[in-house]
């Protein structure tokens, strides 16, 4: 394991899930999707999380664990019929939930930007990429069209697109996947946002291209001390890329730790299982992986992971575990954490 040395002083000590000095602070956030005639599905439950300026926070979880719901809830773009049941999203001193749609629009793209996967499908097929980048700049920065286009060209250069002048006038269908991804990064950075959410952004790319894009992204973010939430299904990427790692399961943070600590000693059985699956070690996998019987939600009366866990004890099925700080800055939601390296 080769974790990135932590940048922030605070990270070496016991950084709490949410603390002052963080640009984004999520407090007790709950999101649910109503289902007709049934209990609503709780996609996010009572979630605390924060990101410091200049920090890259990795958010790891399987499909359906609530990663994208969290991202969209932060931006106030929750898809119907999802709704926020409670909690607070504080961004840069503003209560995001109290803001009007127009105020949110002004923040999106300006202060909080989002990078998404499958970038070619996410760009307007009828407009040149240069104009699309310039449109974002013009929407937020109160500058002339010429100035915005100049800025767009500058951004294309910054994301190291070869021959940026020519690419400026290219249409999305004329770009490769990696190139389109760079365009989307340029678009998200054009207003120098304070916070970037990357939602599974590199999943569609070749491994080599992925590495290039990630390096570029990290350099740009570090350069401007931008905070970033890096959502991924690939726990391996977080080891190289993030300062802290949060593991999300069934809408809850089950483990949160500085990257180094996390990879040295993952404490939640689910984290260990994820790492085992990633390590391609059959013995490890056999030890930690239990065939998925059912995904019955516990409704807050038991550990959500109990049905899949290999270390179930009576209290796991009786009480819902809280997130506990087991060593400075290392939080685990488990009654029987794995205390030795697996």
């Amino acid at each position, binding site marked *: 394991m080769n974790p990135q040395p932590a940048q922030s002083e605070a990270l070496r000590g016991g950084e709490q899930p949410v603390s002052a000095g963080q640009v984004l602070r999520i407090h007790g956030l709950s999101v649910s999707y109503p*289902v*007709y005639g049934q209990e609503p599905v709780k996609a996010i439950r009572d979630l605390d999380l924060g990101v410091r300026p200049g920090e890259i926070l990795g958010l790891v979880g399987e499909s359906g664990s609530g990663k994208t719901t969290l991202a969209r809830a932060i931006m106030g773009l929750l898809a119907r019929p999802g709704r926020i049941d409670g909690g607070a999203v504080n961004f840069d001193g503003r209560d995001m939930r109290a803001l009007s749609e127009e105020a949110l629009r002004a923040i999106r793209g300006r202060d909080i930007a989002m990078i998404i996967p499958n970038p070619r499908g996410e760009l307007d097929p009828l407009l040149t990429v240069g104009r699309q980048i310039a449109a974002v700049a013009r929407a937020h920065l109160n500058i002339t069209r010429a100035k915005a286009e100049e800025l767009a060209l500058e951004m294309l250069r910054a994301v190291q697109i070869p021959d940026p002048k020519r690419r400026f006038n290219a249409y999305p269908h004329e770009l490769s996947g990696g190139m389109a991804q760079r365009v989307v990064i340029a678009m998200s950075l054009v207003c120098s946002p304070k916070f970037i959410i990357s939602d599974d952004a590199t999943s569609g790319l070749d491994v080599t291209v992925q590495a290039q894009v990630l390096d570029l992204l990290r350099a740009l973010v570090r350069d401007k001390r931008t905070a970033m939430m890096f959502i991924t299904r690939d726990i391996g990427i977080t080891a190289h890329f993030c300062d802290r790692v949060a593991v999300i399961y069934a809408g809850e943070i089950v483990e949160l730790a500085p990257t180094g600590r996390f990879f040295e000693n993952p404490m939640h059985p689910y984290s260990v299982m994820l790492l085992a699956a990633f390590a391609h070690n059959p013995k490890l996998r056999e030890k930690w992986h239990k065939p998925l019987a059912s995904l019955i939600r516990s409704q807050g009366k038991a550990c959500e992971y109990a049905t899949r866990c290999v270390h179930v004890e009576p209290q796991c099925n009786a009480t819902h575990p809280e997130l506990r700080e087991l060593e400075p800055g290392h939080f685990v939601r488990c009654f029987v954490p794995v205390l030795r390296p697996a």
Partner: protein
Amino acid sequence: MQSANEPALDPGEAGALGASAAGRRWTRLKFQLRFLLAVLRARPMFALGYFIVLTIIILGVFAPLIAPYPPETANPEDFLQLPSGRHLLGTDATGMDIFTRIIYAPRIDLTIAIAGTVISAVVGSLIGALVGYYQEMRGIRAFFAGFVMRAADVLQAFPVFVFAIALVAIFGQSLQSIIAAIAFVNTPIYLRLMRSQVLAIRNMRYVEASYVSGASDVAIMLRHIIPNSLGPILSQLSVNIGWSVLLTAALSFVGAGVVAPTPEWGSMIAVGFQSIITGQWWPSVFPGIALAVTVFGFALVGASVEVLADPSRRRALGGTLRQKPSGAA
């Protein structure tokens, strides 16, 4: 989400619970009736569509029992009477009772429209299925498939209405020839619809799988392609019947369809046309409303068929119906 939790709403599973064959059929029927009722409660507009269509058909069938006057007997003393207790919707310029003629009219209009549309749907779908199935192969059949499509192009390049009138003129002015004309102008619609359906379904994995496992062309068509393409065809059929009612009326309106004393909405509007300038609106307005309501009803039925024939949309609708039908409209 919904589908996993509602075994009771699946006709197949519900049927499997029944013991004997007859019992199973009864359970299935009961289930389907209940489902239909639930759908109609959730989507009152669909119910309105079925209500309109049924009412028009019943009125037409039982017209001789309901109608207060004979439909084709002129009564010159009573000409252009305003709607009143004696003549519910008034009389036309020859003194015929408009209400009587309106409820007699579906006998002609619906017969022509339904017969013409069904013929075109059957013929067009069959040709379309063959064309779609063989188009991408090689040899003489693919050549014919291409030829049929070019012919359909040419036919569709004709202005529909002039084409229909020309057909009626060629065959002579009779019920059969109007049906033939309507069938003829509608056929390319089904030909194209079926062809595109078949082309899409043909390349699906399950069709390929059954091809690889040695099923014959006929078996593939009967088992996979026709059942899967039936939904859009049926939905189009219903909308198209309404549209053919309009066309029938239009033909009669210009004098190329049903001849004057026969009760028919289009020719009634045409006859009333002269009076409207002088202020007698009822001979034209009432048949027009009857015509519009009928077409509207068939359009609604078409919309409902479109939803009900698609298993996923039917499920979605069923899911919303399950417990709180009141909130689902």
